[in-house]
């Protein structure tokens, strides 16, 4: 794994800014990988072994994803909308999992660890670099029972919603009174008043390459 400073620089660039959450996220990812025994999680021989459950949609989550290389589309990144500054690192090969929780006391201790910096966020940023892992984090050894439908790899099941016809992948359907339904039809959705429309330039496609443009 690359050095902390290098990872922080690259992660911050990918995220868009450097912030205390990035420091915590990079360190959380480095610790998580160390605990599950993966020293190069983005390398081809390790990339399929790691699943990370992220429990917050904050800067820390982006840093964890960047350092570990987990991605939503690869099904290696799972977002659990708990609002908790925590992430669980699962090694599928060894079946070991550790949940790392960012401590609240680290926030209170920032003025003690970087007393020479008066502003809140720069102080937290520097303090989180200085604190040992034992202060920044609590760690739980946990068991994560992974459904085969949550694992990376090809789609394992497809069904259609009996109400709207939408194809549902990977066992996410709901069965009500013997009818297969998608979650929006069965439980309601984050959107409402859905109305099919037309839009300008409906027939746009990416420009075709010229015949001799095969670079």
């Amino acid at each position, binding site marked *: 794994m690359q050095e902390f400073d290098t990872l922080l620089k690259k992660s911050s660039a990918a995220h868009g800014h450097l912030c205390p959450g990035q420091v915590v996220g990079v360190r959380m990812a480095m610790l998580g990988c160390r605990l599950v025994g993966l020293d190069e999680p983005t390398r081809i021989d390790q990339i399929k072994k790691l699943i990370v459950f992220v429990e917050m949609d904050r800067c820390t989550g982006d840093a964890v994803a960047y350092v570990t290389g987990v991605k939503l589309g690869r099904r290696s990144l799972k977002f659990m909308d708990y609002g908790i500054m925590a992430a669980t690192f699962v090694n599928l090969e060894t079946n070991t999992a550790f949940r790392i929780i960012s401590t609240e006391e680290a926030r209170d201790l920032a003025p003690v660890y970087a007393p020479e910096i008066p502003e809140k966020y720069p102080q937290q940023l520097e303090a989180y670099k200085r*604190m040992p892992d034992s202060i920044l984090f609590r760690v739980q050894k946990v068991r994560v029972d992974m459904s085969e439908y949550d694992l990376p790899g090809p789609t394992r099941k497809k069904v259609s919603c009996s109400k709207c016809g939408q194809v549902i992948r990977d066992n996410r359907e709901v069965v009500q009174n013997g009818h297969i339904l998608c979650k929006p039809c069965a439980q309601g959705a984050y959107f409402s008043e859905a109305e099919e429309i037309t839009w300008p330039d409906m027939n746009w496609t990416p420009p075709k390459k010229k015949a001799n443009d095969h670079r």
Partner: protein
Amino acid sequence: MIKTIKLKDAVGMKLSHDITEIRPGEFKGAAFHKGHTVCSKDLCRLQKLGKNHLYLIDLEADEIHENEAAAVMAQALSGQRVVWKNEPREGKIGLIAESDGLLTVDTAALAAFNMIEEVMCATLHTHTLVKRGDLVAATRAIPLVMKRAPIERAAAIAGQNGGVVSVRPLRKGNAGLIITGNEVFHGLIEDRFASILTRKLIDLDCEVAHISFAPDDSEIIRQSICTHIEQDCDLILLSGGMSVDPDDVTRKGIHLAGAQEIHYGASALPGAMFLVAYIGDIPILGVPACGLHHRTTVLDLILPRILAGEKIGKKELAFLGHGGLCQDCPKCTYPHCAFGKGT
């Protein structure tokens, strides 16, 4: 796991913890010690101590008793020249200075340690001069039984830099004094600085090897510093000439002598115009005239730290500010006051 049993059913069982007795103004301590087997004649006294029930402890694998927890934490908290005995009293273990010296407390690690629930450690102030055998800190777990993991995490935090409390011995300085000022050099007034500084140095077990006098002439001050260094002084104190008047040239003399680092100004009163410089590894201290008037000044805060091997720079002088205001009491009780205790 803890079970509660009625006192009348406790005869024959062993106490799982010390039972404290407090007689206000007279006594506070263990009336019964952990492991004591309760017998019928104890019941009346236990009732008088307010005990109608006792705990029976059956520890789970992931649990730890307060006495063992205190020992785990004491081990982790103790740095160099700090010792402890595995003899908890009412769950507490005291940490003791193994030698004379300057107590150093890792205040950041201490704060982090105490942020862990169910543990505590209290210490003397950092930079307190201590004697061998002095109690410098004490620790205990709060509950009788707790989970082992938080105790081990607290111990890891305490041990992050080799322990939270340590004692650094003071070196025996071979000091040179340079008393500056035309008024003294030309005999217009009698010097009193030399005796004051000598007393402070001797109190810290230093030797005053050489004392010289210099007028307000930066070149002569430079020569005096160089002469003291040639005479093997490993600590040089200069008095006077530290203020803002045109005759105050001590600082310039220190600069001319080749000081690589000069930190002028300390966040303490008295002693704002204090100066710390280094020529090689030799500390050069500029003591302002307040040292003549006040029994205790910034010099008393910094000198022990220098003798303990600490490199004093801008940060150390700036951090004196919190607690750096002497109240100028009619009768000085330093070090038994707040002066210098904020860092």
